[in-house]
């Protein structure tokens, strides 16, 4: 068996608005970028899509979904009026368990989650919608541990990478996260969505430039300030997870789309590991 690889990786938003973007004629650029990511992802013919979502929050360490086929209808607790989010995922249970085992080996607390009726989170479902719409590609789904810092998140990423390598799988990684996290707090016209805070926009752009310049180490260095200043989604540690898996030296991003979702920062960034 040849060693596995991570052929591509994505930083993507997880708010449900984009799923309904076409219907609502809003967030056009982000929807286009997400669809482009979906096309590129399919071209790399992955064996597995590994998703870390900031909207699956855990407190007892890092959780790993091991139900073979989580399915159902999810309704977002905030944006329930946008519509239902039906889901059905095929989980690569063996690889997921191996990831958990590798993470435990690095001293991280882990928990396998295998329960009928367990609600997949909005972010994971949104990413599935764009990157794996027919659900044909098996997935691994990981939680975002509230108490993990950037270093722990990088360790988790490294564990994921090692497990992929040993599995022989061709994997695509998905860090499902927002950037700046300051929502509008009143009703808005979706078509006129804009950043709730201009300084947040500047921070987001600064980080995206660093990613495009291959300076992901610098992003890690300023992540704390970014999070403190922009109320970043789960301190932006999904990015640390991604870089932990890709390796800081190799990672260079390409921004496929960027814009606001209900005032927060959202970007679709592609990391092409094959290039």
């Amino acid at each position, binding site marked *: 068996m040849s060693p596995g690889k991570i052929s591509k990786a994505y930083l993507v938003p997880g708010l449900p608005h984009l799923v309904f973007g076409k219907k609502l004629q809003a967030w056009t650029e982000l929807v286009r970028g997400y669809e482009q990511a979906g096309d590129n992802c399919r071209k790399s013919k992955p064996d597995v899509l590994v998703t870390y979502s900031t909207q699956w929050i855990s407190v*007892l360490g890092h959780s790993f979904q091991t139900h073979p086929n989580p399915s159902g209808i999810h*309704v977002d607790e*905030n944006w329930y009026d946008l519509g*239902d989010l039906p889901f059905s995922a095929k989980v690569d249970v063996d690889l997921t368990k191996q990831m958990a085992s590798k993470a435990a080996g690095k001293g991280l607390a882990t928990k396998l*989650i295998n329960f009928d009726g*367990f*609600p997949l989170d909005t972010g994971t479902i949104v990413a599935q919608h764009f990157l794996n719409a027919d659900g044909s590609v098996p997935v691994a789904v990981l939680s975002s541990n509230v108490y993990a810092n950037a270093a722990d998140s990088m360790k988790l990423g490294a564990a994921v990478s090692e497990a992929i390598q040993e599995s022989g799988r061709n994997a695509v990684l998905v860090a499902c996260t927002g950037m700046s996290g300051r*929502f509008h707090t009143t009703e808005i016209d979706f078509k006129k969505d804009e950043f709730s805070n201009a300084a947040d926009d500047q921070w987001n752009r600064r980080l995206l430039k660093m990613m495009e310049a291959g300076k992901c180490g610098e992003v890690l260095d300023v992540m704390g300030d970014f999070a403190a200043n922009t109320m970043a989604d789960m301190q932006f540690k999904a990015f640390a997870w991604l870089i932990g898996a890709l390796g800081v030296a190799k990672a260079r991003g390409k921004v496929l789309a960027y814009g606001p979702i209900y005032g927060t920062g959202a970007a679709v960034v592609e990391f092409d590991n094959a290039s």
Partner: protein
Amino acid sequence: MAEGKILAGFLAPHPPHIVYGENPERNIPRSTGGWEVLRWGYENCREKIKKLRPDVIIVHSPHWMTVVGHHFTYLPRLKGLSVDPIFPHLFRYQYDMKIDMELAEACFEETRAAGLTTKKMTNPNFRVDYGTIVSLHMLNPDWDIPVLSISANNSPYFFSTKVGQEQMVQLGQATARAIKKTGRRAVLAASNTLSHLHFDREPDLPEDMGREHIYNNDQYRWDMRLLGLIRAGRTREVMQILPEFIDKTASEVKAGSLAWMLSAMGVPEVPGKVHGYWSVIGTGNAVVEWDLTQQAVPAGASA
């Protein structure tokens, strides 16, 4: 129609562990017990609620967190399986709740009239959060009293504790006015833990009480300080001290449930009866009752 009133308010913490410890038929996981002192405290509350025969129980839950305004459940019935995404091994609960629609509408209108952003939750596939379910189950496991669920707007986290608490006070006053206008005899439930630092590991047997203790003594002392004021009926001081309490204990009351409830009750200077206090995975939890029937305080007396 007689003027509505609030009969009682309960601080009704919601760790799923206490439902798990009780082994009700509606919850799938089985336990060997655990957290009895809290559960016994809730038994007292159940008896009290049976005697009061309220028309409705209104619960404000931190685990239905909304970013745009304060939301009310607005469907005649909500039914389903609630699997707690945090503790799914402890809580997979079949709920079936009847919503007081007229009161929901009135609360929505009063909240809007108060200048707050508000919404009615009308999606039938909506999964009710475990905070709401645990508090309601522990207060009335028969589910034979209509309910109304209110979301926790995250203004305390977005802006500041002060701004958030001010909103919760307004929301409480609006709730009281709605109760009064609809003639309801209401019981309120603030679904809040007190000190909220907790362990990120659990024993192999989650209900191993040999491993259960408060996170640290500072947290305990702060909880006791707050409960001391509550027991003494110094409710205005409770409201004043909440921001500091939140700051020192990472308390879940930051989400606003307690401030909402005390405000709705008119910040009554009556002693709260502490039915039980214990830790759950390190957090401080108290089951507390404010009986307003003795004082015959009309809804929103100070609103």
